């Protein structure tokens, strides 16, 4: 939300593109690997979902409008996220409005632990566990860990004009998981120029997150379960995001937007569930330790969007985003959508997205036992170099009662270095970045109570 509202003049579609990555990563997806996956899901969705709404927002005199959706994000052999979402907006006179968004994410499945695959030397012959359902590590396969969690989130935004040509939006957001709580506020002011052909926006969004890992807060580089490996229960993370945006209507058909975003994070930035293998020179993982990341992060993002109305309601959207942070990650996103309005009732919308990122400076496959520990190290695949490609197709249909039904399907793949050069010994022959495949399905229904009920009478 933080970033979306900063560009409130634009259709939601546009706001969500690209920048959604950042917002979603930070906020919702906090600390776990699966969060990352959910993030991928969310961002790909956000990339298209609002776009559809943009051109075909239901029009009504009813002050209330609702948007309900159900999303299923499913990775082959890994996690599945089910996400019901309800948003409602109440319009008041004089362009004032209140929006409330409620989201539930239910996540189950397996995510990479960060450790390296067992080798023939280290894989035990068999395994014991209280649950009785443990499976023996497979030689050469990156270890996954099963997990399950549910996240509840609520975002509320109030928008109103502040003065002639000035508008403002103020919001609060909060989310809760069993081990993570995030609370933030955000505000944005927009100023229109040139008969509203130009809009300048400035916004800021501070947030406090509390990490309360299951089993306590691990000490960086400690060996799990060794006495003294846990220090207390929780730690906090402070995030401040700022954004500057310009939206320019070039002509009747062409609209451009440029955003610069700056985010600083401070506090507990480790992933408490991620481990890092200690390996010998033969590549055998001898033991594992908790990861260690810096306690600061500064992130910059540049975002440029062009929307071109080819004719009538057919719109091409192209968004480019460049991101850079002081952990050494650089990323580029290219996102393309085409909104084809077949007739008054029906549209379809293909979507293609490409994403590439470089690795963080302290990303390591594992650490050698005979070397001293570096200042920071993490084997989290989210910090590795990878490419991601999304193909999607959405259909929107305006029903007779004026409500809108949207269905979307997306296919997401994420691929990295299968056999990285840094691999040691036996690890050289293993696939250390298995390509991830995911399918995202979404149903979305938008309505205003007035239309819905009046038809039924």
């Amino acid at each position: 939300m933080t970033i979306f509202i900063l560009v409130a003049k634009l259709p939601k579609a546009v706001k969500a593109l690209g920048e959604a990555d950042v917002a979603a990563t930070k906020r919702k997806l906090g600390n776990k690997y699966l969060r990352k996956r959910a993030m991928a899901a969310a961002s790909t969705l956000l990339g298209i979902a609002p776009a559809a709404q943009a051109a075909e927002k239901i029009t009504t005199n009813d002050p209330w409008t609702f948007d309900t959706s159900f999303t299923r994000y499913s990775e082959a052999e890994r996690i599945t996220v089910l996400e019901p979402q309800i948003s409602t907006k109440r319009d008041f006179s004089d362009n004032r409005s209140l929006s409330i968004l409620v989201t539930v994410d239910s996540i189950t499945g397996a995510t990479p632990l960060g450790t390296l695959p067992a080798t023939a030397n280290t894989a035990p012959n068999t395994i014991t566990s209280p649950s009785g359902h443990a499976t023996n590590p497979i030689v050469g396969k990156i270890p996954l860990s099963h997990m399950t969690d549910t996240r509840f989130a609520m975002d509320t935004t109030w928008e109103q004009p502040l003065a002639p040509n000035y508008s403002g939006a103020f919001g609060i957001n909060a989310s809760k998981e069993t081990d993570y709580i995030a609370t933030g506020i955000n505000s944005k002011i927009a100023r229109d120029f040139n008969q509203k052909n130009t809009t300048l926006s400035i916004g800021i969004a501070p947030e406090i997150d509390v990490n309360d890992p299951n089993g306590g807060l691990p000490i960086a580089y400690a060996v799990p379960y060794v006495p003294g490996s846990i220090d207390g229960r929780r730690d906090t993370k402070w995030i401040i995001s700022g954004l500057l945006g310009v939206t320019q209507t070039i002509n009747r058909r062409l609209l451009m937007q440029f955003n610069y975003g700056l985010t600083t994070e401070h506090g507990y930035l480790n992933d408490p569930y991620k481990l890092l293998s200690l390996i010998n020179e033969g590549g055998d993982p001898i033991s594992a330790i908790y990861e260690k990341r810096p306690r600061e992060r500064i992130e910059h993002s540049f975002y440029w969007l062009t929307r071109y109305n080819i004719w009538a309601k057919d719109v091409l959207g192209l968004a480019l985003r460049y991101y850079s942070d002081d952990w050494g990650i650089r990323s580029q996103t290219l996102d393309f959508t085409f909104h084809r309005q077949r007739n008054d009732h029906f549209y379809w919308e293909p979507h293609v997205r490409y994403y590439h990122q470089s690795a963080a400076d302290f990303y390591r496959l594992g650490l050698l036992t005979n070397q001293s520990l570096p200042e920071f190290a993490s084997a989290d695949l989210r910090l590795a170099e990878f490419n991601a490609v999304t193909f999607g197709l959405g259909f929107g249909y305006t029903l007779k009662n004026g409500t809108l039904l949207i269905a979307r399907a997306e296919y997401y793949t994420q691929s990295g270095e299968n056999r990285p050069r840094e691999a040691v010994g036996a690890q050289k022959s293993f696939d250390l970045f298995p390509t991830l495949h995911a399918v995202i399905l979404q149903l979305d229904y938008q309505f205003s109570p007035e239309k819905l009920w009046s038809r039924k009478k």
Partner: protein
Amino acid sequence: MVEKEINPSFQVGRFQAMGCPCEILLDTEDTNLLAIQLKTAKEEALRIEKKYSRYLSGNILDQINQSHGKPIQVDPETALILNYAAECYELSDGLFDITTGVSRKIKDPKHAGWTNVQWNNPILQIPVSYEIDLGGICKEYASDRILYLLMQRHSISTLVNLGGDIATGGNRLWSVGIEDISKPGHITQTVSLRRGGIATSGTTKRLGHIINPKTLQAVQDAPQSVTVAAKTCTEAGFWSTLAILKGAEAESFLETQQVESWCYRSAA
């Protein structure tokens, strides 16, 4: 579901029984032998499951639990198990009690307690509305039984693993990984075992509460996971279960009893 896995040094055969993934490991290259032994193992596991499952009607356990206070004559195998259960009750000073259901909530706390059971081999008489649950014994017992059967037929080094309850025989040294309870899929430690048994008990939300049969309260401050190595799997299971019931004293208890064990607690 049966699958085979060839390893340069040993062979693995897998099957599903007692609601768990099961496997046997044989120190052989003979795949025919694996197939034969696997069949034996599976049949024995399913036999014991069928006989003592709480979820099947008509078996001996069901007859006992549906006896409405009337005496029941049990078969020799069941008699051995009940003798063992009685012994466990004594040894544990009443903590290990098959009438309370070691790992599930008792529906009615008034209807439990091995002291109120009449057991005169081969006649068992349990008070009205009592139930016994052999879940805390059967899987370990089955591992030992299967190992015995397999070794009797072919005396090669063998490991039987029924959902983490392990029995081994022969001269080969086997390595057994202990799963990290907070990071399923990760192994915290690998232990070596030759001729003996390993069992693991735990307390997590997923596994439900463990009830102390004396206080009838959920056990407090127990380790999340206790793995024990002993002469047999059945014995290992006794110690690991008992250690959990000891709660905060689990580690010191095991140490006093000189039981080889590995306990895990998430918070220090």
